[in-house]
């Protein structure tokens, strides 16, 4: 297949590009201090991405502990107490430590470049919001070593398991989540301020690349729901330490209220983890199909309607808590409705491919796998929306299969696609295609081996979050565990590929991909530290 790739654009035709020359403004600290104090959006973007990759591996190791214990029935490696800490930490780390920071990192790097801004609107705040993260997650991970262990109540931390019955370390868990939340909020403010105020002259909102659009909407979602999460965990903190009874029935509170509040945050949060992925895929598919994105405007409207609907569907996570009929019906209908804008997006991507001139670089392979596998997650999501059927699916491995399909080959594949797509811009070198293809195929096979059998074990009746299971689930679990190991190991290829690309490789011109149109491709590769010191001359493309 290597021979099928098109010739890369030559270096010559790229050096003529505009976009501000790189020149150092002032003395810069060197070594560690440089990274600690940097206010440059590219350096902070890099920090975010490295942090996220680290967390991805830590969360991945936790997942492998879980999968290793589930390799066969019986308790072999870990005890249930520790198992519960592993599932909880895996979820928390992946959601708040890996996926969200990865998207913020990509936004830091690419949003200023795509809108033609010299930097983020609030560079010092940017530095602060990044450095909150390592502190927050060091604290979170340290709870594992505290007496009574770390959080063991699942990433959804339902009260009263997470309040009255929680380990003593829960207060630290709340503190670290607060810090991670503040970091996301500050990141979101920064992104909104950048997008709304620093666009190149002449770039209207409807001229922005979709990655910028999806991030703008994501940032608004973050502003709307992260304070709700902060409120919920503050209530938990008060219940645990100050004797209030928000969620404690004994004091007149209501454990179900916790779930309502949590999912009022939690469902938009799910879209926070997927909307930027839509943006990345919407940049990559047109590039490698050499054809403008089909239905730009409808993509924007679909993203916005998904975001709005996300506030009206939260109780579909709670179909079995005993809701009245009217509520079940309402949340079933709104949830099903989400399939419409999501479908529009998938159709638009396919229409973009139709009559294109398609090549299969690694970035494109990941983007295409995203479309297919995310859609499979969408189908199981539609099945889960059907309230009566959800009485059977709820809290089984079917749900685990569903959300891993939308998050792993969904969000994470999109992030990887984005990395392979923008690596030439970041490093000035093309990533190794051969290595990239190995990484891609190993990942695709690994992911499907891991998560596809979970549909079956779930339907056959295996509840989630259990360290040991009945014998009829043994085969599925064995396959899943083998797949998980394969997926985990193949991510080392990714790290290798990225390092290799940073250190050298085929030189990339400014416009590294023939079909790429957005502003970031007008600055040299690698992008100098300072770009667009004078605003670029923006001409709307055919959106």
């Amino acid at each position, binding site marked *: 297949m290597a021979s099928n790739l098109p010739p890369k654009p030559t270096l010559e035709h790229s050096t003529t590009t505009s976009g501000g020359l790189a020149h150092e403004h002032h003395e810069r600290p060197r070594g560690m201090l440089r990274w600690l104090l940097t206010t440059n959006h590219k350096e902070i973007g890099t920090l975010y991405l490295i942090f996220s990759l680290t967390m991805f591996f830590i969360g991945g190791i936790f997942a492998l502990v879980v999968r290793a214990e589930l390799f066969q029935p019986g308790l072999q490696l870990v005890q249930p107490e520790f198992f519960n800490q592993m599932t909880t930490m895996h979820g928390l780390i992946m959601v708040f430590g890996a996926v969200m920071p990865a998207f913020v990192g990509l936004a830091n790097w690419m949003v200023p470049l795509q809108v033609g801004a010299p930097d983020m609107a609030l560079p010092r705040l940017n530095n602060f919001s990044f450095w909150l993260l390592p502190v927050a997650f060091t604290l979170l991970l340290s709870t594992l070593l505290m007496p009574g262990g770390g959080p063991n109540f699942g990433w959804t931390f339902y009260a009263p398991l997470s309040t009255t019955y929680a380990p003593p370390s829960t207060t630290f868990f709340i503190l670290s989540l607060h810090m991670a939340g503040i970091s996301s909020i500050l990141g979101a403010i920064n992104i909104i301020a950048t997008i709304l105020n620093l666009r190149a002259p002449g770039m209207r909102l409807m001229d922005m690349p979709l990655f910028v659009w999806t991030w703008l909407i994501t940032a608004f979602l973050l502003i709307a729901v992260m304070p709700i999460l902060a409120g919920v965990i503050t209530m938990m903190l008060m219940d645990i330490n100050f004797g209030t009874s928000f969620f404690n029935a004994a004091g*007149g509170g209501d454990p179900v209220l916790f779930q309502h509040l949590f999912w009022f945050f939690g469902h938009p949060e799910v879209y926070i983890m997927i909307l930027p992925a839509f943006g990345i895929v919407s940049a990559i598919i047109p590039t490698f199909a050499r054809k403008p994105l089909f239905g730009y405007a409808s993509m924007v409207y679909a993203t916005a309607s998904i975001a709005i609907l996300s506030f009206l569907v939260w109780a579909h996570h709670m179909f079995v808590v005993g809701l009245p009929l009217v509520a079940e019906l309402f949340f079933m209908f709104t949830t099903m409705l989400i399939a419409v804008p999501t479908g529009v997006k998938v159709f638009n991507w396919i229409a973009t491919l139709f009559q294109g001139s398609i090549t299969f670089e690694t970035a494109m392979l990941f983007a295409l796998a995203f479309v297919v596998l995310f859609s499979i997650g969408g189908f199981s999501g539609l099945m889960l929306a059907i309230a009566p059927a959800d009485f059977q699916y709820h809290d089984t491995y079917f749900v685990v299969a569903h959300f891993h399909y939308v998050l792993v080959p969904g969000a994470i594949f999109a992030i990887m696609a984005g990395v392979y797509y923008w690596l030439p811009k970041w490093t000035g070198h093309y990533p190794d295609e051969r290595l990239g293809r190995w990484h891609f195929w190993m990942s695709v096979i690994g992911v499907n081996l891991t998560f596809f059998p979970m549909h079956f074990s779930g339907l056959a009746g295996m509840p989630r979050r259990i360290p040991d299971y009945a014998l009829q689930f043994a085969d599925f679990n064995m396959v899943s565990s083998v797949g998980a190991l394969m997926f985990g190991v193949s991510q080392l290829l990714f790290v290798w590929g990225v390092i290799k690309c940073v250190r050298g490789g085929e030189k990339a011109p400014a416009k590294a991909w023939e079909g790429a149109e957005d502003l970031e491709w007008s600055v040299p590769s690698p992008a100098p530290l300072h770009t667009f010191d004078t605003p670029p001359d923006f001409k709307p493309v055919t959106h």
Partner: protein
Amino acid sequence: MNPVQRTVFRTVLALMGMFAFAFALVPLYDAFCQVTGINGKVGDQPRSIANEEVDTSRYVTVQFITRSGKGMPWQLEVEHRQMRVHPGQPTEVNFAFSNNSGKALTGRAVPSVSPSQASLHLRKVQCFCFEEQHLEAGERLEAPLVFQLTRDLPPDINTVTLVYTLYPVTDSQSQLQAQTSPVRGGGV
């Protein structure tokens, strides 16, 4: 203010609004539950008898279940475990608390109604669950429950179950409860 500052100012305002909204959701949720009958919650204040004719053509079975939560050495007994009432008919049932332990203690009976839709049509005129009870060691206290199921109880509901779970009240809870009880405390 430059445009960036203006944007930041607005987003921060929205943020603070949303944080306050999270806390406002607690009483809002309770109000919502009381209006819609979600969760088997009704107000924790006594209500008057609805003046309406008793529907003698229809019987509804009312069950009473009493339970003790953790750390609660009391017994809550009810005169009748089950009774049949007509919609519209005010009914009185006697409950008895007894503290079998050797120490004085404050407790609360937390009510719940099933099916939850029935809570919309349940009016409690008098209930021990509106307040905390304090019992000396070995003390026994009789407390009546006066209630009425209104005539608009949906026809498909034939059985209404009232459950009371006894919980001990700790000092810190008691104080906070005193401040917040108008908005919280799922009383029926």
